[in-house]
């Protein structure tokens, strides 16, 4: 259904290898995506300590739950990000409990829960990552269309591309990114 570019096919192969129990596939995934996972955790939680803990947990969970990766969905990056969201939520829950415990002394103290606004860091950083690896002109077209909010005609003129090509990049690109978001949702919500 979707046309995979080469990096995707290669990444899907990685997912298949992980699924079959190849520890080297996990090491390769760590090389490729630990920075993505760690940065999401760092933005969401605020400290390197927590971010590194989450990074560790995510890759251990990826290994233990390798049967849940879906090689047919292409790159396992979104799958990892889904696990990351899940772990961050778990850590927050745990923090909240600790926080309540800290407040056990004075029950009348205003219970201000630990911040839970994650500002969609997982999705937003995954999108940045996907745009970075998507290559041009597609990535540039998408940035101009959605970040700079320029019309397709304007983009076509600026990049000296046929209008049909610009539209095609917007369609393929947005559908690919939407698929990533769905995968994050699938993994993080169960």
């Amino acid at each position, binding site marked *: 259904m979707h046309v995979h570019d080469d990096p995707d096919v290669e990444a899907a192969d990685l997912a298949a*290898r992980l699924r*079959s*129990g*190849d*520890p*080297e*596939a*996990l*090491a*390769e995934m*760590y*090389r490729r995506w*630990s*920075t*993505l*996972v*760690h*940065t999401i955790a*760092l933005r969401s939680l605020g*400290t*390197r*300590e927590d971010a*590194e*803990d989450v*990074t*560790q*947990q995510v890759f*251990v969970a990826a*290994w233990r739950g390798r049967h849940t990766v879906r090689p047919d969905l292409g790159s396992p990056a979104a799958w990892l990000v889904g696990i990351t969201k899940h772990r961050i939520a778990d*850590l927050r829950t*745990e923090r909240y*409990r*600790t926080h309540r*415990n*800290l*407040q056990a*002394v*004075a029950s*009348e103290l205003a219970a201000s829960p630990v911040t839970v606004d994650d500002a*969609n860091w997982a999705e*937003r*950083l995954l*999108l*940045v*990552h996907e*745009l970075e690896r998507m290559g041009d002109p597609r990535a540039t077209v*998408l*940035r101009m*269309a*959605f*970040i700079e*909010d320029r019309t397709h005609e304007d983009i076509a003129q600026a990049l000296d591309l046929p209008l049909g090509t610009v*539209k095609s990049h*917007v*369609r393929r690109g*947005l*559908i690919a990114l*939407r698929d990533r*978001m*769905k995968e994050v949702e699938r993994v993080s919500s169960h």
Partner: protein
Amino acid sequence: MSHPTEDELVDLAVGDDSVAASVSAHVAGCDACAATVAELRRTAALVATAPAYAAWQTPGDAVWGRIADEMASDEMATDDRGAGGGGPQGQDTVSLTTDEPTSDDLPPTGPVRREPATPPTGTVRREPATPHTGDELAQRRAGRDERRGRARRLSVGWGAGLAAASLAIGLLAGRAIWQPDTPVQPVAQVALATLDTKQDEGKATVVRSGDGLDLTVATSKPLDAGDGYLEVWLLNADGKRMVSVGVLAPGDKASFPISQTLIDQGYVIVDISREKFDGSPAHSGDSLLRGKLPA
């Protein structure tokens, strides 16, 4: 009518004027297509707010070693059961020649595409292009830092013996490898003494618990709470800050969840105070026992 194409739905989602009226009409009455349009719009909105500069941050070098340790202890547990599910087992000759460069010098963001490792069904392990000489092996053994050493155990650790060895090394290195059946290793421990006479009347122990730390406080005899209650604190070594860890219920032992961050920030002095029911969350100043956790 049949559903519009995905392309048409994208056009609708991004507000392309050229979308046929029949497409909008269909979406208005079709939950599945409306959901797709909503997903596409949400994605577009997230792209719009994506940071222009991601400021990527690489995790510390030690993180991969900790992951490899957990994988190795999983593997050992699997071998104990003698059942599959944990990857290739027992088929590797345990020798340093199985030392693969892939996990040996793991570059977290390394751009180099590595050779795939031996598939789990394979019985022959890929050998390095040139056999190691004895000198080379000695040099490699000696020259590795901790991260490399642990990463190497990942690649050779798939035999039960090596997995056990790696566990032992991990413990020797003072690393408490968390496993449900493994007795917990204290991270730190200190005697709690009275402030005036310096008599040992208790003990504070920090153990790793799941993802966090637990502080356990035990006293040799129940403390006198007077007409108030007992509270456990972590005082900062700077002498200026403190956090309440919890209330010490009647009895002589209790555990409280704490975080590594607290310890790292210098909250290392365990203090038990007598508090009055006066509504003040602050420390009363009436400390009974105190001890400083070793760094």
